[in-house]
């Protein structure tokens, strides 16, 4: 079938199999390999992207369902050379180690802060329950999200 999907601000028309998952469309059709596949059960969140600004696990969405919508992946988050505040916070707070869960974790954090710009430690932890990290023990991921929240709040004030 034919789909028209806006990916990172650019509209693309592509032929895909009906059964194509959004994550495979992003990786294989669009060649954006930042979005990773970590499990088969929508458990790990490594494939999290934004669909019309809301975080979704792209392994549980068909490419067909994204037809006519916009998708943001990790490659589309930075503003040119300038990293998104969440990306910058992950860098400063050492919120990543091997980096495999990171794109999904960052996208989930962006979405979390959009819904709740001033989360508590516990709210960040519960907000990221759907994203698994095996390296960091989450300590610095939580620090990263809290730091990004603080920075965003400061910028708004």
């Amino acid at each position, binding site marked *: 079938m034919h789909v028209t999907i806006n990916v990172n601000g650019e509209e693309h028309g592509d032929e895909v*199999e009906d*059964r194509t998952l959004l994550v495979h469309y992003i990786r294989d059709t669009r*060649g954006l*390999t*930042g*979005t*990773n*596949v*970590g*499990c*088969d*059960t929508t*458990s*790990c969140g*490594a494939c999290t992207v934004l669909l019309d600004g809301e975080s979704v696990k792209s392994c549980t969405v068909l490419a067909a369902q994204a037809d006519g919508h916009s998708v943001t992946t*990790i*490659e589309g*988050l*930075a503003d040119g050379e300038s*990293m998104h505040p969440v*990306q910058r916070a*992950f*860098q*400063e707070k*050492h919120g*990543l*180690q*091997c*980096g*495999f*869960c*990171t*794109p999904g974790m*960052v996208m989930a954090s962006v979405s979390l802060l959009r819904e709740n710009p001033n989360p508590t*430690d516990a709210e*960040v*932890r*519960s907000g*990221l*329950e759907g*994203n*698994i*990290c*095996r*390296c*960091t*023990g*989450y*300590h*610095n*991921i*939580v620090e990263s999200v809290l730091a990004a929240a603080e920075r965003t709040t400061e910028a708004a004030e």
Partner: protein
Amino acid sequence: MSILGTRVERREDPRLLTSGGVYVDDLREPALEGAAHVTFVRSPMAHARIEAIDVADAAAMPGVLGVFTGADLDVDPVAPGPGLGGQPLPSAMARPHLARDVARYVGEPVAAVVTETLAQGEDAAELVSVDYEPLDAVVDVDDALRDEVLLFPEAGTNTAARSGERDESLFDGCDVVVTRRIENQRLAAAPLETRAAACAWGDDGRLTMWLSNQNAQACRDAVQEQLGLDEGQVRIITPDVGGGFGAKIGVDPDAVLLGWLSRRAGRPLRWSESRSENMVAMTHGRGQRQTVTIGGDREGRVLAYRLDLVQDLGAYPLMSAFLPTFTGLMAGGPYDIAKVETTARCVVTNTMSTAAYRGAGRPEATAAIERAVDLFAAEVGLDPAEVRRRNAVRPEQFPYRTATGLVYDSGEYVRAIDAVLEAAGYRALREEQARRRSEGAIRQLGLGISLYVEITAPNNAEGEHGHVEVLPDGSALVLTGSSAHGQGHATSFSMLVADQLGIDIDRIQIVHGDTDRVPAGAGTMGSRSLQLGGSAVHRAAVDVREKGRALAAELIEIDEADVELVDGDWRVRGAASVGISWAELAERARDRGGLAADVHFVSDSPTFPFGVHLAVVEVDTETGGVEHVRHVTVDDAGPVLNPVLAEGQRHGGIAQGAAQALLEHMSYDTDGNPQTANFADYAIITASELPRFELLHMETPTTLNPLGVKGIGEAGTIGATPAVQNAVVDALSHLGVSHIDMPTTPERVWAAINEA
């Protein structure tokens, strides 16, 4: 001021944060253009005779390039790994690349399908028809020991190795003796990136293989040997690696087979396993059934300790037969115990093979003795922290020779205990615990302490290779046989070089994980990277600096003692305007072999980092639910090169350690069917289940390497597991609970409360 010891942000991160890095499955190399896909057909039975395999229907499917079974292979099965203390294991227990006559675990590969696309592979694999004749499966290690059903009848027993003698008089003279059976359960390493490989044969007859692995050089040797290729015929590249935790040390037969399949199919190939495939077919960790016996006097002095263990090897013995060696050596832990005895038996079962997982044998040793010390403390009626203080090896006893024959280099164990107790407010916590107990509160407080010592860089004899070179553009190139999968080598190793050469870390290139560029090396495992790999790079940098000094002095025509490095350039002492840059020096050194040095660093002995973990939990006595509310630690691994990285290693380790104590268990039913074969069933710990970690700082250097450093990668895991488990038991001790096996799930905790 030296850059060492400062909080330098990781150089790796901008790339990983903005484009997600390049893992094996992301590779778009020209050599992999048109790569076909490999899909494995895996046994659905734990133990079965393979009567026949019919591949005709699969071979007729669209996009199928070939279907291969064990009968097609002309490669020998892989000999078992090292045994206890290096003694050989039965050769009958060799592991085939594809099962031929018998399948011995659910997930064992029995056929491989090569197709144009991944989806075609999944479709075709469904149509490979295998006739299985079910055999009785052996899942529990105690059943395996009975030898009624044998996995390898030719071997005559399921026991692949055994060690240790029992001394019946071990506890003579002890007033108090306590014994307890403990389960150190099987775990999945569960790196977020599953196993993945890609390969291509070049026109020159060489095989290039990209692997998600911790040790490129060992993979090269294994692939060459298993496929019968010549030395130099294989190049292994490990690009970004999405976590390993020990399970990516070895090269699995499935991955090696890719090279063989690629030659047969005449195509470059890719393989990236699914999560459920990873859960059943990547090596598991731990898997020890332990019986601890501890004896001493009424004053809380431990006099003798016995650890009897049975190691579950899984279906084919890989390196896990070696794990009890570490467990045995480290059995006595950080305590001054006169008599320590370990006996071990390693048995095969119809489950996935076990191998290294974060700590590899040391967490098992620590979990055992730290549970034993708590049992002993309860028996003599002393606070568990006090019993640890009374028995810990004292600073003046170092170097300390243990009853198991090791020599601990340095440590300050009691100071570490006191630091953690004070920071946590231990006395106040005990008072709070007493208050809740007297009130009969629903949520009881538990305090768990663990004191540990571990062995790092245990394979120090292999040493590590480091190459440092200043290039004519004034930048530096570093080659290391150590190889990062999240540890931050690009940052830490460039800090070491910047410290010696004054070259900005952004102008230092770190190369690892490519056997053509770095032929010698032993990868990243056992917390060896900084102490061996870092020491090699440091020494090479020192050599290059001295070569630079000599050449600068020669060119300026001045005494060597009169030139110094200032802001990355060589200057004449006292005449800062006269000097020569690294770039100029490197240019001038071109026809003299360049400004380079190679160092192979070997340490005389492993090092022995140590630490103390205090876990605080709240246990809901009505539901059995456990909440991990605080975690205070000191992990002393000597001087810290970059606190950012060291803290990150500790955080990750604590989480994995706590996960073993609280949640994780790779389990099989009695027929050998995996029950936790995906992330929905296997309880991977999430952010919600963990507290913020409170880290204290202590540095006790070693003299075994020029940096004074010990390893930190496994510390958190080793210390956290018994601390959290002890905390759960402690919360319920007033009810008569003295032990709960890991994982301390609500079900088990609830049962313990009700049985007490």
